């Protein structure tokens, strides 16, 4: 078994448990008496403690124990899960996460912080329970006190009187084993049976342990070691160990403690005492404590954020999806063999079963054709099925926001509700990871700039509690994610003045509302009063836009002054095999995804009109749609210029429609979209490329991209 794999599983499991703990604690705040919930959280912490200990991570294990103590107290009703308790537990969960990050990165966890939090826990437990906490079970590594025995030297003689638990046999315990163990500890001088409890022969139950024993043993071991063999019986049995001779010379460490020169605590502390880099620097006057603290804080949050990056990349897969995929592969294998059989069935003397089945010369093309199309279908299904394995529900990212919103609300003294919808909507795992940071920024933005303070809201007649709504849904070949707030909305004047001030827009420029909202995504725009939130993380609205566009997505803004704003992200689903319409323009071939196509036709000359200031329009059953000439867009030579001699394809994108002009419709087929390669920059109008059956390269069009570029070009032309 691979150590790497075991480690990977361990880290993964810990990550799961930590997420469970955190989400449980957040719910606990509103349901402090939910015993089931407390037990669930307890079990999760318990597992962290056990598993990390078993993996040799005693620091984390020990810390988890402290956290567990608090939960145990909650379980026993020693106190209630009020806000301060949940806060403390969240601190504990955070610390566990930080420690876990450290070890995932193969570094030692930061014990200073852990000890701070441990102290807080200790104080809290003492305060609530009104008594000192029982000594925690420290992992053996922390104990620095040397054990007593100098074997071979001084032996003592003990008398052990053992009256066992009468259920001993029923628990599967055997006294003979105990005697053997004792023999390992020293020299057994004598064993005498004590028959006080044995009843008359007719009353004896053979399964009950009536008998007791007195054992005299010479040993250099101490009392504790002598009790070890009785470990499982000591609680329920009568065991007395009395020393027959007195103590002799003890080791130095023990003596110092016994004589009161140092305390056990002193020794323990001295060992843990180790100056940290930060401390030394502060002492030398090289840095201020403030600065050190601030940087440590950043480091902490950065580490916590990159937690997932340290985990071996793996994914949990819905077993139904896997089974479906396996079925498909099975079908494919069957079709292959049918195919093969078909090929070897037809034809003449060349066919010989003994040579493993040659391919024959004559083949029934119809049958082959049928099989090939079956294969093609299965191939596509397999592709889709495999891609869907990588799909995760967006809820995985959404849920992390509860914590963020809670903290932001607390630090800004606001009351905020986080509403989630559409969490089951699925997206590719890596895409989901990439939108996580931009979403964090959008939510922070909504809270920092969108939502008003409680007083302001009340003054406007809004409820005191502000709300942030995260919504996800799939439409067509994209997933839409919306971040909505019911705050003050965007202020056109403020944005305009800021843009003019920063020189992004010349004064007096007439801009539509939509264009004004898009200004907030310009680099350098940030109305950053809160530089601390943004600095060090490299996220701003412009970065959000860039990240989304890197995914071939788009960001849109809707806002209503005084009512709120919605930021929508459109992320295309990456399915690499699509059905496409192949069109020709001059010598070139292009593919238009079928999902974007509504219809195609050859218009009559009268259907095409030119309107000044608006370009060409095509009349489709009374509706006039804009016509975009692909040969103009791509600057192709020798196209068919007259629409009535060419083909018009009506396409839709984001709820809008328009027409594309191409020369000819060449057909429809399934097409594998391939990336154009890293050497070429991403462009809005091309989604990728593919190779057609005749070996030519065809570019796959992104309709929305074509329209945006056409818009831009029109704007330039008019200017």
């Amino acid at each position, binding site marked *: 078994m691979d150590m790497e794999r075991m480690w990977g599983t361990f880290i993964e499991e810990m990550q799961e448990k930590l997420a469970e703990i955190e989400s449980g604690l957040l719910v606990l705040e509103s349901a402090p008496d939910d015993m089931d919930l407390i037990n669930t959280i307890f079990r999760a912490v318990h597992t962290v*403690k056990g598993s990390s*200990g078993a993996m*040799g991570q005693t620091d984390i294990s020990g810390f988890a124990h402290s956290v567990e103590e608090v939960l145990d107290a909650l379980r026993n009703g020693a106190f209630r899960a009020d806000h301060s308790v949940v806060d403390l537990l969240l601190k504990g969960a955070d610390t566990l996460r930080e420690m876990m990050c450290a070890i995932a990165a193969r570094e030692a966890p930061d014990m200073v912080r852990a000890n701070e939090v441990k102290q807080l826990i200790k104080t809290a437990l003492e305060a609530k329970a009104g008594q000192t906490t029982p000594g925690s079970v420290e992992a053996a590594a922390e104990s620095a006190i040397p054990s007593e025995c100098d074997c071979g030297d001084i032996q003592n003689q003990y008398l052990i009187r053992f009256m066992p638990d009468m259920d001993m046999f*029923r628990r599967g315990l055997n006294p003979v084993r105990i005697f053997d163990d004792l023999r390992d500890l020293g020299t057994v001088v004598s064993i005498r049976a004590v028959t006080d409890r044995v009843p008359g022969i007719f009353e004896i139950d053979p399964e009950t342990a009536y008998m007791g024993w007195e054992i005299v043993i010479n040993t250099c071991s101490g009392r504790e070691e002598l009790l070890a063999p009785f470990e499982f019986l000591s609680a329920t049995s009568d065991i007395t160990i009395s020393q027959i001779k007195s103590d002799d010379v003890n080791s130095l460490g023990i003596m110092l403690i016994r004589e009161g020169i140092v305390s056990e605590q002193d020794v323990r502390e001295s060992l843990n005492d180790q100056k940290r880099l930060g401390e030394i620097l502060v002492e030398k006057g090289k840095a201020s404590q403030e600065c050190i603290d601030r940087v440590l804080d950043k480091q902490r949050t950065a580490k916590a954020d990159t937690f997932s990056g340290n985990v071996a990349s793996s994914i949990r897969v819905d077993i139904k999806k896997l089974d479906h995929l396996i079925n498909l592969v099975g079908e494919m294998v069957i079709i292959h063999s049918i195919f093969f059989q078909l090929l070897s069935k037809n034809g003449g003397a060349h066919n010989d079963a003994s040579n493993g089945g040659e391919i024959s010369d004559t083949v029934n093309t119809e049958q082959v054709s049928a099989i090939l199309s079956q294969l093609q279908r299965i191939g596509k299904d397999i592709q889709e099925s495999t891609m869907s394995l990588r799909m995760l529900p967006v809820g995985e990212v959404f849920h992390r926001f509860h914590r963020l919103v809670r903290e932001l609300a607390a630090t800004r003294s606001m009351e905020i509700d986080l509403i989630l919808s559409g969490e089951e909507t699925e997206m590719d795992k890596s895409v989901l990871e990439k939108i996580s940071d931009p979403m964090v920024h959008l939510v922070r933005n909504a809270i920092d700039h969108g939502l008003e303070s409680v007083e302001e809201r009340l003054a406007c007649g809004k409820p005191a509690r502000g709300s942030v709504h995260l919504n996800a849904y799939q439409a067509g070949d994209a997933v839409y994610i919306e971040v909505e707030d019911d705050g003050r909305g965007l202020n056109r004047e403020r944005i305009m003045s800021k843009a003019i001030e920063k020189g992004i827009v010349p004064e007096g420029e007439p801009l539509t509302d939509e264009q004004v909202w898009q200004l907030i995504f310009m680099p350098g725009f940030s109305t950053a009063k809160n530089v601390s939130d943004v600095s060090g993380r490299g996220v701003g609205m412009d970065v959000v836009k860039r990240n989304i566009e890197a995914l071939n997505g788009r960001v849109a803004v809707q806002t209503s002054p005084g009512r709120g704003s919605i930021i929508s992200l459109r992320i295309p689903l990456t399915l690499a095999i699509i059905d496409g319409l192949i069109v020709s323009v001059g010598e070139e071939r292009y593919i238009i995804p079928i999902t974007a196509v509504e219809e195609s036709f050859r218009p009559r000359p009268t259907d095409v009109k030119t309107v000044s200031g608006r370009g060409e329009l095509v009349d489709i059953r009374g509706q006039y749609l804009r016509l975009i000439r692909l040969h103009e867009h791509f600057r192709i030579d020798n196209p068919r210029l007259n629409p009535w001699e060419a083909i018009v394809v009506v396409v839709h994108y984001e709820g809008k429609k328009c027409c594309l002009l191409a020369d000819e419709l060449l057909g429809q087929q399934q097409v594998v979209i391939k990336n154009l390669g890293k050497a070429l920059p991403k462009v809005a109008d091309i989604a990728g490329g593919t190779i057609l059956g005749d070996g030519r390269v065809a570019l796959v069009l992104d309709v929305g991209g074509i329209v945006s570029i056409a818009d831009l070009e029109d704007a330039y032309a008019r200017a």
Partner: protein
Amino acid sequence: MGKTIMFVDDSTTMRQLVVFTLKDAGYSVVEAVNGKDALSKIPSVKIDMLITDLNMPEMDGMQLIKAFRSMGGYRFTPAFILTTENHADKKAEASKAGATGWMVKPFVPQNLIGLIQKFLN
């Protein structure tokens, strides 16, 4: 060695580690994720020892051991509980439920081997 041990724990990490350690030491191992799962598997395997975690969903270690003891042929089979609780009352409870003994978590799986060898040989 031909001895079969059943290990019950809801933590994947623990199961993985312990199964590996036990198999390495020559034992056959049957895994279960909680008490209910264990009880469903026991009738079809003959086990020589049961080791179970205490805190598990659906059915915890105590209940499992109680049920285990009342199953035919397992009245005297060694049955151990893994527990991090060092409290005396938990141990007494375990004893009353019929547990042979306990192993305190966190432990290094090698220590488990020592315990098993004592009770299986």
